[in-house]
């Protein structure tokens, strides 16, 4: 059948196991957002639309072969850096941070673009130098990483800059950065922490202090952590039941459809729900890494691996933050939180992962 053939072609780069796991996670997301938004149908429809758009984007990207994607690496990176410089010079200040750039037609947040552009750029760079890869190249790659990170850190946006750093480091790590440098870097970073403290903004320090002792400021910065921890803890073994979370529905949880949605989930589905969610994430990551390892090109392997590990990092940081073991940084729970940008960028990432694994033939550059 013609239609069947067409559909088959549409999905021929989609990895069935990964797609199935992602579908499970998205169903969880739909249920949780519906509850978190106090059963608002409008919000539900908007969320479904976001998911639909993101899925279309994923399918579309899965058709783009890695070698074609590579061509975008440098332009995307350069454009991103230019926009970040633009933000630094003429960005709009929202909530005390200069993150947005008004282009006349639309207001964009260039740091979002860099979430994908940076690992792409690094993967492309290492791919380019793979024949003669040396420490010097890793050093150059590190510089490529630090330029956007420094610009984003200045905005200031500690969360995003750390996560972009992580995605770049994942590329370097998978690309074969020597263990000595890795260990040395970890030691150095540990030693630099007290100095880094001085460079943190007050509100950033406050978040760290709040993590250490939330009760020091129960109505201010500590409020989010206290309330989300209460929500998680009061969920107990089996949870309060879907739509029955009192912390969520009585408005005690801040940002509960976005960054703190895990608290809603945790309150309503309890420890068992959390276990299933962790297993689901682990399965997605496992399948993602497996696909990454199947990628024929170094670019594909590095980029796909970094994307999957970044996905893991987001999930870990978010759940750690909500359950009170990591400081509050504005990171959504990937594929569960409400919000179109994150949804689209994460699913595009998985589209790349699927593409990298399924495009077998590689044209040498």
């Amino acid at each position, binding site marked *: 059948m013609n239609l069947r053939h067409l559909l088959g072609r549409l999905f021929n780069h989609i990895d069935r196991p990964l797609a199935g796991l992602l579908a499970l996670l998205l169903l969880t997301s739909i249920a949780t957002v519906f509850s978190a938004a106090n059963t608002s149908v409008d919000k539900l429809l908007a969320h479904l639309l976001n998911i639909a758009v993101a899925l279309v984007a994923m399918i579309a990207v899965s058709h783009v072969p890695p070698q074609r994607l590579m061509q975008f690496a440098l332009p995307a990176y350069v454009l991103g850096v230019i926009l970040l410089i633009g933000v630094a010079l003429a960005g709009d200040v929202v909530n005390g941070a200069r993150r947005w750039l008004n282009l006349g037609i639309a207001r964009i947040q260039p740091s979002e673009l860099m979430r994908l552009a940076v690992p792409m750029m690094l993967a492309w760079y290492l791919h380019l130098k793979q024949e003669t890869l040396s420490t010097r190249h890793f050093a150059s790659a590190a510089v490529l990483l630090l330029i956007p990170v420094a610009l984003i850190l200045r905005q200031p946006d500690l969360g995003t800059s750390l996560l972009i750093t992580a995605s770049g480091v994942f590329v370097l790590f998978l690309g074969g950065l020597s263990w000595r440098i890795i260990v040395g870097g970890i030691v150095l970073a540990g030693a630099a922490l007290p100095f880094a403290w001085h460079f943190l903004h007050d509100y950033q320090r406050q978040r760290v202090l709040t993590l250490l002792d939330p009760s020091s400021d129960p109505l201010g910065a500590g409020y989010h952590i206290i309330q989300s921890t209460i929500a998680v*803890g009061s969920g*107990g073994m089996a949870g309060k039941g879907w739509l029955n979370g009192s912390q969520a529905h009585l408005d005690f949880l801040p940002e509960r459809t976005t960054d703190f949605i895990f608290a809603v989930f945790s309150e309503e589905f309890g*420890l068992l729900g959390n276990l299933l969610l962790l297993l689901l994430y682990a399965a997605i990551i496992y399948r993602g890494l497996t696909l990454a390892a199947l990628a024929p090109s170094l670019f594909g392997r590095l980029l796909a691996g970094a994307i999957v590990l970044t996905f893991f990092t987001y999930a870990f940081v978010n759940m*750690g933050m909500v359950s009170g073991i990591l400081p509050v940084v504005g990171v959504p729970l990937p594929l569960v939180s409400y919000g179109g940008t994150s949804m689209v960028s994460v699913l595009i990432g998985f589209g790349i992962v699927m593409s990298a694994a399924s495009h077998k033939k590689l044209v040498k550059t």
Partner: protein
Amino acid sequence: MATSLRMVNPEEELRRYNFRIKVAAGIVVLAFTVLFTRFVWLQLVEYDRYHALAENNRITLTPNPPARGIIYDRNGTVLAHNFAAYTLEITPSKAGKLEETINRLAEIVQIDAGDRKRFKKLLAESKNFETLPIKMRLTEEEVARFAVNSFRFPGVEVKARLFRQYPMGEDFAHVIGYIGRINQRDEERIRESGRSANYRGTDHIGKSGVEESYENLLHGITGIAQVETDSAGRAVRVLAQTPPVAGNNVYLHLDAKLQEIATKVFGPYRGALVALDPRNGGVLALVSKPGFDPNLFVDGIDLANWRALNESPDTPLVNRALRGIYPPGSTIKPFMALAGLELGFRKPGDAIADPGYYSLPGSSHRYRDWKKDGHGIVDLKKSVVVSCDTYYYRLANEMGIQKMAGFLSQLGFGHKTGIDMEGELTGLMPTPEWKQKRFKQPWWPGETVIAGIGQGYTLATPLQLAVATMAVANNGKVYQPQLLRGWRDTLTGRIVENPPKVVTELKFDPEHLRIVKEAMVEVTRPGGTAAGAGAGAEYLFAGKTGTAQVIGIKQNERYDEKRIAARHRDHALFIAFAPADDPKIVIAVMVENGGHGSSTAAPIARKVADYWLLGKIPEALKEDAAEEEGENEDTPPPSEPARAGPAAVTAAPTRTTR
């Protein structure tokens, strides 16, 4: 590093990649294990704690204050009740700039200067987070207007509240008292007595009169609602509740009509009247003139009104019946006569010749009789009837102050009567010991002489005079004066009687009592000092006039009523009971600057007795009734029952039900 330029083996590269992927996977497993451990900690180990915290977040206990009990007179006339009305209330902590908010509110709802002043006063006294009324008794239209604009006023809300109201107004202010907002002192008292929990949500408390003394009966039991609230503290739904138990309705011995008549017959005078039922001590009327409008106090009196009341030379805030102390004057004579007989200083037949004065043996100082030329031959009975001073100068001197004080103390002079109201004064029954202690001076014989006619140091409240009169009328049996007749227990629905309390049963010779009583009946008959007031009485009206000096008259001066400033005129006193052969009412009247007891005080007592015994309404009041209608138009709300009419007896009290 040494590996500056080395060819990479693709195989080796792939192996290394796969190894690193495995390392990364290991990190993922490790990280998720950490998370899972954290979840186990929060959701299993610490579950109870977080569960409790979430419940605390969710559930707020809101007090549900009870409706205050209604105060009725003996016939069911409402003396204090509640009505529901809308108020506009501001929560200062949420309202932002108060001045500006109020100004903007004034564009929608009429807020006058008085409202603003009262609000300021309340604000100064308030605890934080309390809502305070800016405007009472909104009209339906104002409620609607505010509702439309309410989004512009955070922290401002319309509330349906119960208001205390005193429909009888000023004539009953001193007996019924009033409630007012709980201040810091009240709060301390509440805390000390362990009633704090029951006063959560209550913002008024009895401040005087019956409202104060029966606060515990009237308040009721506060209900508690478990309300689910959101993070902003807004109630979402009620989970469970214990409804409040309304305060007990209280019934007084007081007769509203009698009280009203007793007040009106005072005319323009200041003074006090106490009417007791000698058969049980019930307070039938308790007047203190001038009164004040108790409704002014309920939600905080404004400064102008407060000043006017507090600084008035007429001291309307003083309850003269309990706190006015006056020399008893000649009203003490029947008691002195009884003392003379009981203590054996006089026999009924003993008579003296009264030259118009008395001098102590060996002294030339003349203690003058009120009648310049004396009363001629005076026996005990006549001494009471004509109020002969000389007789009592002499009797007092013979008796001595100690015995006199001893006897009169039994009748209640110098002791609190124990009435169920706060603030009663003790009066004074002087003794040499007292004087030594008080003035460090010895007692002079002359002081005993004037004590014999109720002058000098002796001081009594009108209530004490009424109680002493009751002792005689009752043949020695003294009941504690009580306002409370009983109450309806809200929980059981049963009427609980407040039993009469016998203070003492004095043993007097019946013959002696008969003589004194007869003499007191003669007082109101032709030839007696209150003959005018007694004329035409259809029952045996026993009484005794009295005059208490306000300023001393020099030895050779004459007291000329007309030439003395009104405020320096003598106080007029009258004590009475009737019918003398079967007393049903005991009355003590004090008219400040009223001149003679016979002309001002006695007619008041007669009118009160006439109404009580015969149901006679004084002619003057019947005409007044029509004029009164328009008087207090600023206070009564729409729901006010008709003034004192029989309709009020059955008028259902207004209250909100949930």
